[in-house]
C-alpha cells in the first residue's frame, strides 16, 4: 500500500555561507517532513580538519549553531527532520553543539543522530591508489595529505532516519544522498530499485544547491528576468511514492520555478547526463521532462538509474604551497594603457633573477580585471574600459615568497605608472583537493544517537 500523501522535503542551504532566513520560512510555513542543509564544499573538510587539530571540539561548520538556533524551534514544533552535513571533520562535536543549542532554546528532549565513517585517511595512508584525473597516486601526497573522506551514500543515513530523531548530522555524504535517504525510508524504496533511486537522485540534485533551482543564479536583465531576488525563496519538493516530484517554493517569496530554472540546475556540474555517478545509483537524467503545472510549480519526471558503482569516491585534501596576489587600479583616460604598462613592469620584475626576492620561473597570472582577467585576451580585449584593475597572482613554495608578490604590486605606487590606487595584497596557503576511489569494504558507516539530559 503506497502512501498517497506526497513527502515534502526542502533545501535550507545550498552552500556553507547561504542565507538563513529562507530556511526559517520553510521551517515555519513549508509543512515539511524534512529540511536539508548542504554545506560542505570540496575542500571544506580539509580546512575543518586543520581547525580540529588545533581544538578537538572544533572542526564542524562555523555556522552550525546559528542555523540551528534559527530553525530548530519551528522544526521541532512542526515535526520537521533536519538533515545536514555540517558535521564536516567533527560530526560528534557538531551533534553535541546541537544539543547545547537545544538546551538554550528550551528543547531538552531533542534527539540527534550522528553519522560517521566517512573518514578514510588511515586507509589512504596504508594503500597507494591512483588519483583520479592525475598521473600520480596517493603516495605523491605523502607528508602533505590532511584529510581523506569518502562520499557516503544514502544507506549510511538509513539507521539514523529509522531512529526517530529531530536532527541528523553527517560529515562527507554525497550531496543528493542527504535528500534521497529520507525518501527511501519514507516510501520503502529498496536499495536496488535503480529506477526510483534515479528519481530520488533527481530530486536531490535539483534541491542541493537551494535557490539555484528557484530563480537564483539565473537572472540576465531584459533576457531572463527574475522577480524579487532580494527575498528569493528556497525550494521544496513534493515527492510521490513512484518518485515523481513537484518542485516549488513558498507563496510570497521571490524567484521563479519553471522549466528554465529547473533545467539549468538539472545539468549543473553534471558531466554525462545519462550517467551521473553517485554513491547510491548511476542516474540517467537524459530523458527528464519538466512540466509547468501552475506558476512556480514544476513537475519533474523521467529520471531513471542503473546499478551503483562498486567503489566510493573520496576527496583528499592536501597542502599545495601558497598563492601570493596583489592588485592595483587605474581609472580615467588611458586607464588601460597604464594598466598594461604596470603589467609589463611586473613581468620584467618576474624575470629578474638579480632581485633580492626572486620570483623567476614561477607559475603566474598577470592580467587586467575589466579587460581580460576572466576569459583571456581573445574574448575580452576589444572594449575600452573606464577603469581597470591590475592583478598578479603567483604560485609560490613559501609564505615569504608569496608575500613578495603583493609587495611587487604595491611598489607600483611610487615606481609605476601614474594614477594607480587601491592596492590590495593577499597570501593564502593552498589546500587543494584530489580524488581517489575507495572500495566499499573499506568504509563502515556508523550511527550514534545523542540525547539531551533534561
Amino acid at each position, binding site marked *: 500500500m503506497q502512501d498517497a500523501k506526497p513527502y515534502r522535503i526542502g533545501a535550507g542551504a545550498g552552500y556553507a555561507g547561504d542565507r538563513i532566513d529562507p530556511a526559517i520560512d520553510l521551517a515555519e510555513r513549508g509543512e515539511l517532513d524534512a529540511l536539508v542543509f548542504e554545506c560542505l564544499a*570540496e*575542500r571544506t573538510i580539509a580546512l575543518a580538519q586543520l581547525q580540529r587539530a588545533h581544538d578537538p571540539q572544533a572542526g564542524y561548520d562555523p555556522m552550525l549553531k546559528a542555523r540551528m538556533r534559527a530553525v530548530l524551534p519551528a522544526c521541532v514544533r512542526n515535526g520537521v527532520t533536519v538533515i545536514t552535513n555540517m558535521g564536516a571533520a567533527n560530526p560528534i562535536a557538531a551533534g553535541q553543539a546541537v544539543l547545547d543549542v537545544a538546551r538554550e532554546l528550551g528543547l531538552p528532549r531533542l534527539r540527534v543522530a550522528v553519522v560517521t565513517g566517512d573518514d578514510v585517511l588511515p586507509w589512504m595512508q596504508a594503500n597507494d591508489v591512483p588519483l*583520479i*584525473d592525475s598521473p600520480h597516486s596517493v603516495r605523491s601526497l605523502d607528508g602533505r595529505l590532511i584529510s581523506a573522506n569518502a562520499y557516503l551514500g544514502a544507506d549510511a543515513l538509513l539507521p539514523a532516519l529509522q531512529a526517530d530523531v529531530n536532527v541528523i548530522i553527517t560529515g562527507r555524504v554525497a550531496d543528493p544522498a542527504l535528500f534521497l535517504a529520507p525518501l527511501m525510508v519514507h516510501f520503502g524504496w529498496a536499495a536496488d530499485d535503480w529506477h526510483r533511486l534515479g528519481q530520488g537522485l533527481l530530486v536531490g540534485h535539483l534541491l542541493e544547491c537551494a535557490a539555484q533551482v528557484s530563480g537564483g*543564479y*539565473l537572472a*540576465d536583465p531584459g*533576457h*531572463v528576468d527574475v522577480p524579487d531576488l532580494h527575498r528569493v525563496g528556497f525550494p521544496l519538493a513534493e515527492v510521490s511514492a513512484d518518485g515523481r516530484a513537484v518542485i516549488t517554493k513558498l507563496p510570497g517569496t521571490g524567484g521563479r520555478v519553471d*522549466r*528554465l530554472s529547473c*533545467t*539549468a*540546475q*538539472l*545539468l*549543473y*556540474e*553534471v*558531466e*554525462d*547526463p*545519462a*550517467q551521473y555517478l553517485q554513491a547510491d545509483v548511476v542516474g*540517467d*537524467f*537524459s*530523458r*527528464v*521532462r*519538466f512540466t509547468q503545472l501552475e506558476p512556480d510549480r514544476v513537475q519533474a519526471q*523521467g529520471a531513471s538509474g542503473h546499478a551503483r558503482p562498486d567503489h566510493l569516491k573520496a576527496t583528499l585534501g592536501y597542502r*599545495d604551497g601558497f*598563492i601570493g596576489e596583489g592588485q592595483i587600479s587605474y581609472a580615467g583616460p588611458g586607464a588601460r594603457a597604464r594598466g598594461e604598462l604596470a603589467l609589463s613592469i611586473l613581468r620584467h620584475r618576474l624575470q629578474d633573477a638579480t632581485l633580492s626576492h626572486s620570483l623567476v620561473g614561477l*607559475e*603566474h*597570472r598577470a*592580467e587586467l*580585471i575589466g579587460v581580460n*582577467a*576572466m*576569459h*583571456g*585576451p*581573445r*574574448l575580452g580585449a*576589444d572594449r575600452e574600459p573606464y577603469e581597470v584593475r591590475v*592583478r598578479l*597572482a*603567483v*604560485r609560490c613554495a613559501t609564505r615569504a615568497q608569496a608575500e613578495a608578490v603583493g609587495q611587487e604590486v604595491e611598489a607600483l605606487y611610487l615606481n609605476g605608472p601614474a594614477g594607480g590606487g587601491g592596492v590590495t595584497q593577499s597570501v593564502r596557503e*593552498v*589546500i*587543494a*583537493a584530489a*580524488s581517489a576511489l575507495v572500495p566499499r569494504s573499506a568504509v563502515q558507516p556508523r550511527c550514534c544517537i545523542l540525547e539531551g539530559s533534561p
Partner: protein
Amino acid sequence: MSMNAAPGRPEQARAPLGGGADHDVTSVGARTLRDIALARSGDKGNRATLSVVALDPKDYPELERLLTAERVQAHFAGVVHGPVQRYTLPDLAAVHFVMFDALGGGVTRSLALDAHGKTLSAAVLDLPL
C-alpha cells in the same frame, strides 16, 4: 552533429583549434545566442561543464545546429585547453558541454580570479546566430 542523436549521446571535438582572430565576433545589433538561450557553467575537477538551454523550446533545433562541440571549442580557444564533449538533450531543449583542461588545474589550486569558471557561461552567449 546529428539531429537524430540519442539523448545524452556524447559527441566530441578532439583537435584543439588554433587561436588568433578567427573566433566569432558579434557586430552591434546582430542577434546572438543570448536572444534565444540562457547558460550556466560549473566545475568538476579541472573540467568545466556548460549548459545552454533554449528560452523557447521551439528554438532547440537552432541551438543544436549552432552549438557544435567544434564551435564551442573554437570560441574558448586559449581558455579551454583540452577537448570539448557535447551532449544533446532534446527533451530538455538543452545542449550540454564538458570542457576538459579548462580550470587552471581545478578550483582548489587555480590562480584564476574565477577559479570555478562560473563566468564562462556568459561568454558563450555572445556567439552570433
